[in-house]
């Protein structure tokens, strides 16, 4: 029953909240319209999103968000330093391969997005067969260390959230 009306309950909730925030005021009309859209959009797009990811441990999600926000601030300062004070050619830019333990496509998407937003790294490609992410580093110091940092800092927490 809920599967046909609400294929993605969390998506419905997100759409509902985002619509209310978009209209920026609270009234009955806004709530009704938000509810209609929250039901209509997920059911129309359910065809393109067959899986139903299980998301657990809200505390870990908060912890993850805090860590990522902190890393974004640090990474901005790091990248700003590299851009301003180093000649472009002197940067040791290279691709590294990160093997993945994550299974669900949603979790891999979150990890890829996080890598792009954080210190000097950028997700370039996802290898479906080898189950690895190809990551471009702006200034690589030690490949093993960079891979270990991604796995410990982000992937271990995503594993706890998504599995």
């Amino acid at each position, binding site marked *: 029953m809920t599967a046909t009306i609400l294929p993605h309950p969390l998506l419905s909730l997100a759409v509902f909240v985002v619509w209310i925030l978009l209209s920026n005021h609270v009234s009955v009309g806004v709530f009704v319209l938000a509810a209609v859209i929250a039901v209509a959009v997920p059911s129309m797009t359910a065809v393109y999103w067959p899986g139903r990811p299980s998301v657990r441990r809200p505390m870990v999600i908060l912890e993850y968000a805090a860590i990522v926000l902190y890393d974004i601030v640090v990474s901005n300062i790091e*990248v700003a330093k590299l851009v301003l004070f180093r000649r472009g050619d002197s940067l040791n830019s290279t691709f590294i391969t990160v093997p993945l333990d994550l299974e669900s496509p949603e979790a891999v998407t979150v990890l890829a997005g996080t890598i792009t937003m954080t210190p000097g790294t950028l997700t370039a490609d996802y290898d479906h067969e080898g189950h690895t992410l*190809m990551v471009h580093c702006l200034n690589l110091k030690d490949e093993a260390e960079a891979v270990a940092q991604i796995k410990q800092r982000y992937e271990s927490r995503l594993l706890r959230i998504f599995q």
Partner: protein
Amino acid sequence: MYLIADIVISIVLVIGGFFIFVGSFGLAKLPDTMRRLHGPTKATTLGVGSILIASMLYFLIGQGNLSFHELLVTIFLFLTAPVSANVIAKAYLRKNGDGKSDADAERRTPAEKAAPVR
């Protein structure tokens, strides 16, 4: 009170402008496509974030109402920036052969790195 708020908002705005400038400067300065991608995806995030914080503070203190549009802008930015960066990276990889040969091309020897190439 209003003077302090104005000063704080101004400082946040200047920080935001600085990081957006660095992001655009990196896009212009760095030598190849993959390196250029790093500037706009990261430096700009904090830049836009600071300006949005300034906007929230301005409307909260100056006009007394809390605006959530800035939060939404942040969320949409976090969703779209990695996707666009990924699409550009994929297009680059496709144009320049498969990933492995490309990684080899970018992995230069120390002697080549030390050479004063401009």
